[in-house]
Structures are given as C-alpha cells and as structure tokens.
C-alpha cells in the first residue's frame, strides 16, 4: 500500500491541494475536479492517493491565506481568519501557522481513525438495504444538500432536479433503451460525469474570476512570517479544545450536506463559549485558530464515512470524490468493502498519509507555499482553463466532452449569479442513475404502489425527513409571503 508511487502521488496531491486551498479563488473542489482526468487511467489506490491528498491539502491550505492576508482561501477557514490575522499583525504569524498545521493534523488523524472504525460497521448495516432503502437514503442526501446549500430551497430543488434530469440522458439503466439523446451519438453514453464536474466547479469559477480580476490585488500586502513555532505550552493548554473540535468536525462530516464551511464556525463558537478568557477572542487568540482548524480537517474523514458506505457525500468535495470512485468502476456501499478491501484499505492509508504530508509540508515548507500563493490570479486562471479543456478532452479523447464542460460551465456561472446552488446539481448528476433505478425497482417490487417506501421503517424515516426538509421551507416561505 505504501509503495513509492502511492507516496509520490499523495505528496504531489497534498502540495497541490495546499496551493489550491490557499489561493482565494481556487478551491479544493476545483482541484479535485481538475485532476480527475489524470486519475482516469491510474489504478485505484494511486488515484485516491492523489485525490485524497488534494482533499486534505485543500481543506488545510485555506488557513494560510486566512492568517496572512485575512482572506480565507476556502470558506472552511473563515473562522481562522478572525483570530489568525490579528495574530499575524502582532508578529506571531509563524505561531499561528504552525498551530493551524498541528491542529489540522490532529483533526485529520482523529477523523481518519473514526473512518476506519465506523465505515466497515456502517457498510455491514448497508448490506441489508434493498432498493427502497437506497432510494430513500439517496433522496435524503439530495434533500439535505438542496435545503442547506441555498437560502431558497426552491432553487435548490430546481438545481437538484436539473442534475437528475441531466443524468437520465443516454441509455436507460434498467431497460437499456435510448432516451433523450436527440439522435446525437455522443449522448448515448450520457453526459460525461468528469466533463460536467469540470464545468460546474472549475470553468464557472474562471468565468466569475474574470469579473473581479482588477479588484483583486490584496495578495501583495501580505503579512510577513515572523515569530516562532508554537510553544508546547499552548499545545498542552489546547488538548481539550483539540478533542472537542475534532468531535464537532467529525460529527458534522457524518451528516450529509453540512460540510467544512459550517464546522469551523460551530467549533469556533463552542471554543469561545467554553473558554476562560473570552476577552482574548477577536484580538488574536490561539484557541480560536486551533478550534477552527482542528474541526475543518476533522470533517474530512467523517464526510468519507457516508460517502463510502452509503454513497451520500457530505459536501461538494466528497461528491467529486464519489464521482472519482465511480469512474474507477467502483460503487460505494457494502460491496466496496467486501469485494475490494484493498481499495478501502488504500483509502484509509492514503488519508492518513496525506495528513502526515500536510504536517511536514505545513511546518517545513511554509515559505515556499507563501511564494507560490503570490502568483497573480490572472496568470493562474488561463492555465486552469486550459487544464479544464484538455482534461475533459482526455477522458474519452472526445471533443464533445469539452463542449459539455463548457456548457456546464456557463450554466453553473449563470446559476451562481442567480444564487442557484451547485452542489445539488452535482449530486443529482452523480446520484441520478442510482436514485432512478432504485425507485423503479422498488415500484416494480410493489407492483406500482408507492406505499412500499413507507412500509419499511428505515426507508419511511428517511423519506419523511427528506420530504419535510424540502416541503416545510417551501410552505413556510410562501405562507409568510401571503401574510405580508
């Protein structure tokens, strides 16, 4: 498992992930989407070495710019900026950065442990699921993502339905007949998953950046890295904080759809509530940095649990990783654990390894990363765009996929402008075939009756939660609207 090639890919992934996470405008999701085509021809374990490295590095990298320029590189590091930037202003940038690195490492390792303990057990439970349960759980995941990703649930629902509909194009998963292909040969195999991912999360971002390119020159006034490595005393004082924030992060990771951007705030607020020195908060407080950074990396392993066992990703990043799993020809769930235990072990190992590399890189090479971050956005974006086009071409050596990516990029760009959330659309595309075939199998089992979804306790619970998560906000919003 820890062969040289895996270690090299993991190292590369982690370093590139840190860069993508650190630069505001490049996101970890984008990094994973961009590098997916590279993994297409690889074996499963090295592919995941690269992608998990990008994931872990990307989540951690946000803290660097959060501390040094007060702009979190990813939304997951927003709370870090509140405490980290004042510390950098006080000349304690290195203290804050090293604490952030160590916290991220602790959170990441804890969550990796939970993944190893919990995932096989949950997978065994999932073994007993039939089509109605799978349909209910997928619908549940989709409804959670739609309701949380957007303020307006209806936009989330439209977005999810659009994704699901896009996934129905091509060969029918059960009967095998052609549908919605409009006579186009390229659509027979359906909309390319990687191409649409690249469009949704990379091309749209490039287009958005084109608007703000002139207003985005803050990187030059970066705080200098001064100070010393964080002292053992501070680390010792934060032991309980590390534990609590890890638990919060892992818990949030386990719930579909909440994700990194919420974990850091919740854990930061908890740390603030529990502290003995509340007056330090906001002025540059080590506890705050530790809480935020521990929890956002603790999400990583937690979010992989439902992704690997049930096929429900916790956030956009794990959704893309789910796509990666499917591209490797692997399906999430009990079969993944039974049929390909070496891949599962590889995922565990590479996640842990990525955390170790993150610690080494974060403590040892922080100056190098800071130099790379200074590369201006207007150089990076064209390069990202080329990688998008070449990457989507390389999947099937097909130019049609490049146009698919471009089209999804434009759709995503417009959707972002109108605040239609993208994660439900992505999840719809990924889960589409699964949801549809399980729905139809269930209906066939019950000879046309929808009651089957409510006869089984587990599926009933998930369907009811899913429906109420979608219907309640719609009702509330519209009733309020009328009474105004």
């Amino acid at each position: 498992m820890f062969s040289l090639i895996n270690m090299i890919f993991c190292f590369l992934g982690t370093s590139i992930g840190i860069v993508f996470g650190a630069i505001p405008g490049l996101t970890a999701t984008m990094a994973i989407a961009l590098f997916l085509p590279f993994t297409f021809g690889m074996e499963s374990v090295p592919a995941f070495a690269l992608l998990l490295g990008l994931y872990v590095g990307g989540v951690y990298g946000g803290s660097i710019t959060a501390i040094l320029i007060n702009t979190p590189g990813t939304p997951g590091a927003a709370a870090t900026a509140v405490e980290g930037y004042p510390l950098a202003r006080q000349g304690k940038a290195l203290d804050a950065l090293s604490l952030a690195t160590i916290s991220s490492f602790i959170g990441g390792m804890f969550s990796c442990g939970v993944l190893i303990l919990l995932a096989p057990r949950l997978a065994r439970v999932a073994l007993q699921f039939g089509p109605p349960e799978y349909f209910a759980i997928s619908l549940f995941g989709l409804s959670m993502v739609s309701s949380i990703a957007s303020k307006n649930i209806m936009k989330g629902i439209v977005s999810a339905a659009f994704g699901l509909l896009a996934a129905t194009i091509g060969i029918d998963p059960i009967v095998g007949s052609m549908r919605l292909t409009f006579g186009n040969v390229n659509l027979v195999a359906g909309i390319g998953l990687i191409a649409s991912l690249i469009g949704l999360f990379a091309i749209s971002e490039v287009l958005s950046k084109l608007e703000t390119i002139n207003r985005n020159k803050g990187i030059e006034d970066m705080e200098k890295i001064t100070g010393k490595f964080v002292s053992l005393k501070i680390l010792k004082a934060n032991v309980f904080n590390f534990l609590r924030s890890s638990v919060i992060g892992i818990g949030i990771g386990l719930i579909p759809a909440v994700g990194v951007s919420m974990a850091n705030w919740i854990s930061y607020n908890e740390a603030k509530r529990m502290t003995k020195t509340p007056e330090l908060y906001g002025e540059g407080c080590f506890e705050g940095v530790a809480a935020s950074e521990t929890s956002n990396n603790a999400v990583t392993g937690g979010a992989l649990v439902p992704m690997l066992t049930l096929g429900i990703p916790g956030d956009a990043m794990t959704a893309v990783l789910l796509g990666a799993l499917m591209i490797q020809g692997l399906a999430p769930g009990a079969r993944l654990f039974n049929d390909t235990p070496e891949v599962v072990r590889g995922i565990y190992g590479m996640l842990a390894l990525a955390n170790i590399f993150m610690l080494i890189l974060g403590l040892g090479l922080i100056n190098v990363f800071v130099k790379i971050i200074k590369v201006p956005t207007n150089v990076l974006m064209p390069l990202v765009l080329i990688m998008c086009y070449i990457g989507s071409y390389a999947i099937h050596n097909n130019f049609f996929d490049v146009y698919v990516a471009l089209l999804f990029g434009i759709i995503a760009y417009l959707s972002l402008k109108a605040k239609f959330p993208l994660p439900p659309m992505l999840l719809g595309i990924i889960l589409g075939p699964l949801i549809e075939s399980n729905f139809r199998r269930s209906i066939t089992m019950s000879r046309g009756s929808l009651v089957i979804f409510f006869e089984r306790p587990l599926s009933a619970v998930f369907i009811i939660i899913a429906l109420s998560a979608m219907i309640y906000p719609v009702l509330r919003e519209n009733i309020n609207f009328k009474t105004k």
Partner: protein
Amino acid sequence: MWIIAFQKRLFAFYKKEVRIELITRYDMKKISIDLIVSLMFFVFGLGMLFVSSKLRFSTSVTKFAGPGTFPVMLTIVIVVFSGILIVKELIKISNGTADTLKIKKRDLIRILKLLIISVIYIEILQVVGYLVATIGFTALSLWIFGFRKKVPFAVISIIFPIIILIIFKEFLNIPLP
C-alpha cells in the same frame, strides 16, 4: 377580501411587467438575473417535458415505471418550482425589491470574448494540433485576463502547454490531438 388584493397585485404586476421589458431592452445593468435563470430552467423543463412525455411509461420489464416516468417527474418538478420562482421574482420586481444583475458591461464583454476564443480553440485544436493551438490560446486568454508583462507572458504561453503535453503523453500515456 383576498380577491380584491389579488386583483390589485395582478394589475400592478401587469403594469410593471411592461416596464421590465423596457428595462431589459434599454438598460443592461438592471436585468434581474434570478428571473432570467429561472426562465431558462422553466423553458428547458417545459421542452424536456414535451420530449420525455413521448417516451414509454411501461415496458415488459418494468411495468409500472418505464424510461419516461422519471424524466417526466423531474421535468414537472423543474417546471413547477421554476414557475413559482418566476412569479415570485416578478412580484419582487413590481415591488422594486429585486436584485439586479451586478455585472459591468466591460466584464460581460470579456466573458463573451473568453467564451468565443474557447470555442475557436476547441475547433482549431482539431485542425492544427495541440501545441500550436494551445500556445495561441494561452497567450490570448492571458491577454483577456489582463496580464501584460512581456517576458513572463511569452514564457508562460510556451512552457505551460509543453508541460501539460509531457504530463499527458509521457506519464499518463494519454494522446492529445
């Protein structure tokens, strides 16, 4: 009572709707992007509903849910919800509380330029091959992104396409056009 209120709203809505059209025609800055995107989804949903309603709803294998069932369900969801969003947005516009598109004309032109050269790039790629097309595209897109330093400009436009070529050809064994 509510009927009168509804009539009033409908009247106001009608009056404002005429104005929206004027706004969209003459003032690029005041388009409601929510309305446009909702309309886009609505029209798309309606079109797809029409197409998918012609699919079969029952086959010998799956008697109760054929290839058409799921797409039709989804298009109905899209049409209904984007319809509600459109109506709400129109009411918002008539109340003057709608968000307008915050995009400068110059930025919009840049985005269009980038999209146009992207399409040209994808087409030319198939004719002149990877390296020439990509070097050209890198240079043009760097230009659109406002990067003007001469020496790095040339270096990046030439070196980056070569690096990508080496990674794909040598390391991944994926042929490029």
